């Protein structure tokens, strides 16, 4: 057994991350290397939009959270080549703070991911906020997919699986999925120990 180093402790992202991590979205004079769009602007693939809110244990909308998405492309493969300044093609990675929409919602533009080796399509979510001493991991699954075949999904306590399902909604004339995150309560989102 090799001797190991102690891992650096986690600390909260705090309330003031925006001018570094999501500066353009918030209008600070620093450019952003990632934003709310995970696809190449020029690609013809059908867009989906993922929107939602983050709620605290009292049911209040959290307006200083940071949501990151990381997903595979339509064939189920994650981008391996470095993301560069030109944002060339599908990046699969997005980042949005909940402090700029008046209703505290987040919204991402992407494509539906594919899946490999029998899993269901999903998007990895990383969540940060003031009041959370850790980065939290969860996943978005889709309401119009067969999710029970997915080994991770089907091993979640049956009563809580729906907390990871984004609901399809064509209401605004586009393919939107609604995905709320609840920190606590009856609908507390399932978070992962990675």
């Amino acid at each position, binding site marked *: 057994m*090799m001797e*190991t*180093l*102690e*891992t*650096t*402790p*986690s*600390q*909260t*992202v*705090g*309330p*003031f*991350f925006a*001018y*570094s*991590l999501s*500066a353009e979205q918030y209008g*600070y*004079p*620093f*450019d952003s*290397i990632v934003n709310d769009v995970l696809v190449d602007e020029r690609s013809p693939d059908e867009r989906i939009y993922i929107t939602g809110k983050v709620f605290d*244990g*009292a049911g209040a909308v*959290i307006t200083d959270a940071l949501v990151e998405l*990381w997903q595979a492309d339509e064939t189920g493969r*994650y981008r391996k*080549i*470095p*993301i*560069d*300044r030109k944002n060339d093609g599908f*990046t*699969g*990675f997005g980042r949005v703070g909940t*402090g700029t929409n008046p209703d505290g919602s987040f919204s991402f533009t992407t494509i539906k991911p594919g899946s490999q080796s029998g899993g269901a399509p999903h998007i*990895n979510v*990383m969540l940060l*906020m003031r*009041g*959370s*001493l*850790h*980065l939290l*991991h969860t996943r978005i699954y889709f309401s119009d997919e067969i999710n029970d075949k997915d*080994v*991770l999904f089907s*091993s*979640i*306590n049956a009563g809580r699986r729906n907390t990871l399902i984004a609901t399809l909604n064509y209401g605004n004339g586009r393919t939107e999925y609604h995905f709320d995150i609840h*920190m*606590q309560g009856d609908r*507390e989102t*399932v*978070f*992962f*120990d*990675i």
Partner: protein
Amino acid sequence: METEIKDNDTQPPHFYPAYKSTILRSPTKPLMLVKDFIKDLSLPVFGESCIGEFDNDLTKNAMKDRQPIGERIKVAGKVTDQYGRPLPGVLIEIWQANAAGRYIHKAEIHDAPLDPNFLGAGRMLTDKEGGYMFYTIKPGAYPWSNHYNAWRPNHIHFSIMGHQIEHRLVTQMYFPGDPLFEFDPIYQSVPKHARHLLVAKFRMDWTEVEFALAYEFNIVLNGSKRTPFE
């Protein structure tokens, strides 16, 4: 399949009521252990073109007509996994208050001056040896509303994104000997024996003569589920 949070004894708990915002914002149910399902999940890799010329020099990257006010410092270190192996190409993003303890953030209400020549944001990629280095200004302490007369110790926020899912960490770096440590619930949330891991070391031998003091802050990312030679 849901199991208790693993006992990683350098990490703070999720619920730490002395830090009041955790009360309504921390999960109440155990996290689900997923390492058997999520094997070798990568994170995005960022290319050098993402990093601007002065992105790692906060004394220059927002300079308008003069140098920012404050004590110029160098903050440098290495990013490794738990086996001490250097992690190259890791994206490090930082942010901090200015020398007066004021953040440029719009929601910041502390009545201390902004510095027109200082933004407080920077980023870079680690080099082949996992090394990084920022020039900046030593941040000031600032008050917050957690409890009566609450002040945060001087700190720099770090966001670190390695190349696999376990290697995403957000943390804060502190300065040695800060008298506010014993009053700060965010710092105190970390188990006592592990708090030193968040405190940079003063490095006289890294200082630049008549230019900048220097601090070393090494970052060890959690790779405990991988053996080094599998």
